């Protein structure tokens, strides 16, 4: 027993040597360890605060800091590079952000289409083996232009072209057109994502001669491009309006057809199959009304034929009789040809008063 007492006494002495780490509070201090934040909602001692402000504040803060650090020292520790670190929990306090929450980027038209069709991007190698040059050529960027130049030191002029055309110039213009088209599509996507209405651009400019349909379309668009949407424009004798896919949308004043949503591959397959089915299982349809009418007509024709055959010798007799209400072939009676009754007052002329 002596040993036990001795140890207990020693412990007590040891504890007395150090100041305590426990703090008593009337209300519990609200601690957010993730933020290293402690908020003490206990009432302040106003008398002490007035009398000795700094000492009071320091003591108060010390107590609250002790409580906060007690909580932190309870957390599981780790050792990293001769330092003891603790893992802090998620902070509870919500602080306003500096910028709004990022919105997801709007998909481009192609991306939308690819998504609906399940098309995934194929990764291309940065370098490709060129058989002609016998070396690795990058897909784009540094050294691509040099390789292209080396490769195309001579370009053949095709037979259908003017022999004096500069093929290098032609190639360059084609390339710049592609770039411009891409830029236009980028802007269109931007406008679409912002829901901005963009004016119709009409026909794209082509480097080559325009063909007949393009010219026709251009003429139709130009005609409709007046303030009254081409209503008062003269027409040529045999003029036709341009038709075709996508032309209707280009003409001003025409109602835009609402586009159907892009069908999924499954839907598309079904549609195609059903169409094929309908074609293969086609049977002649009977229009009952038409058939009945035709039948009646045939009968009537037959009957009239018979009548004509039987009554042909008496045909002249009937004419003399006249006045048959159902005979539409007779001449219409004309006014003013009949006999007048002189005793009756004439109905004609102005009524005099």
């Amino acid at each position, binding site marked *: 027993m002596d040993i036990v007492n001795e140890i207990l006494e020693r412990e007590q002495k040891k504890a007395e040597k150090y100041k305590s780490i426990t703090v008593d509070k009337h209300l519990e201090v609200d601690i957010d360890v993730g*933020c290293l934040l*402690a908020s003490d909602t206990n009432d302040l001692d106003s008398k002490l605060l007035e009398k000795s402000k700094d000492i009071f504040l320091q003591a108060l803060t010390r107590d609250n800091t002790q409580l906060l650090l007690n909580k932190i020292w309870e957390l599981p520790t780790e050792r990293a590079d001769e330092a003891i670190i603790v893992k802090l929990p998620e902070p509870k306090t919500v602080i306003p952000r*500096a910028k709004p929450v990022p919105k997801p980027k709007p998909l481009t038209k192609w991306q939308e289409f690819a998504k609906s069709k399940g098309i995934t991007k194929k990764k291309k190698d940065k370098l490709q083996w060129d058989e002609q040059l016998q070396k690795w050529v990058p897909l784009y960027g540094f050294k691509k232009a040099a390789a292209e130049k080396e490769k195309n030191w001579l370009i053949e002029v095709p037979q259908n072209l003017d022999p004096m055309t500069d093929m290098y110039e032609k190639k360059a213009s084609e390339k710049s057109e592609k770039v411009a088209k891409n830029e236009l599509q980028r802007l269109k996507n931007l406008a679409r994502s912002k829901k901005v209405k963009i004016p119709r651009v009409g026909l794209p400019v082509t480097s080559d001669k325009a063909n007949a349909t393009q010219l026709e379309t251009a003429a139709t668009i130009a005609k409709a491009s007046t303030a009254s949407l081409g209503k008062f424009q003269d027409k040529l004798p045999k003029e036709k309006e341009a038709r075709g896919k996508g032309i209707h949308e280009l003409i001003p004043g025409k109602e835009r057809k609402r586009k159907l949503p892009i069908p999924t591959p499954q839907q598309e397959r079904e549609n195609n199959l059903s169409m094929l089915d309908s074609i293969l299982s086609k049977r002649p349809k009977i229009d009952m009304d038409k058939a009945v009418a035709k039948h009646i007509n045939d009968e009537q024709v037959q009957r009239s034929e018979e009548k004509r055959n039987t009554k042909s010798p008496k045909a002249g007799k009937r004419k003399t009789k006249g006045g048959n209400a159902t005979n539409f072939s007779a001449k219409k009676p004309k006014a003013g040809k009949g006999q007048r009754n002189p005793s009756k007052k004439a109905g004609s002329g102005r009524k005099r008063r």
Partner: protein
Amino acid sequence: MGVIQRVKKPTTRKGKKVLQSKEPKPIEGPKQCLFLQGRNPSDRTRKLLKDIYDLKKPDGAYLSRKNDFVPFEDATLIEKLCYKKEAALFGVGSHSKKRPHNVILGRTFDYGILDMIELGADNYKGMKEFHNAKVLSGLKPCLIFNGPAWDLNQDLKRLKSLFIDFFNREKVETIRLQGLEHVLSFTATESGNIYFRSYKILLKKSGQRTPRIELEEIGPSIDFKLRRTRLASDDLYKEACRVPQELRTGTKKNISRDAFGSKLGRIHMGKQDINRLQTRKMKGLRKTPEEKKQFLIKRKKEKQAAKQAQNAVAE
């Protein structure tokens, strides 16, 4: 303004990177702070802002030139400068007879003013006047808020959030125990006084694992008085406090952990048909041709009934 929203594409790779760095992110870094001088700043407000700037380093910029503007009347200058410097916090010092030693602290959201709170510095003792060793710069301080007034008064509630915003620095996953050496204490009284104190933590032996804390004042020590405020509307504040979807932690259904930390899942199964269960095959239990026929007819009838019911539903 994100890169995608711009009509003009950035021409250089570096320019693109700069624009991308300015785009809103789900997890934001520490907010930058801008310290400005208003009309006729007093020596005290200059020093005070400088001290706060020292505490805020390296996430801040101190602009020492005077600016002839009144933030509460026209805050466009602040918005402009905050946009230019990519800062979300600001402090403006000014001095007038009506409002001596005036300090305005505030923050912006989406380059527009969110909160702005005016404080008068009644008493001030700078960091230099305390002749002792200071803490390292860039440390994450412990924040202590004393007094019930912080939760009772609406203005003070917002001021508390603003102070946390100012000194919280960034969110950290882990912290070194020896690195906890700075405490900022904010005490609010009912009369609208706010006592700002800064202490260094001294870790003493306590005979236990947890050390005994002693504090040493290192400055600055400021007695603020609450003046005018311009707080954000609840809608805007709520919008600013929105947590992105990817950071929101929703509870997953049917997953739990037991006391030993092993993951338990609960799955739902359809009703079992015991009659159809295949048991041991024996010659005696085999169906006779008659029974088989009966069974097939029965199943056919069932199927027909189901089909009819389905058609009825469809119509």
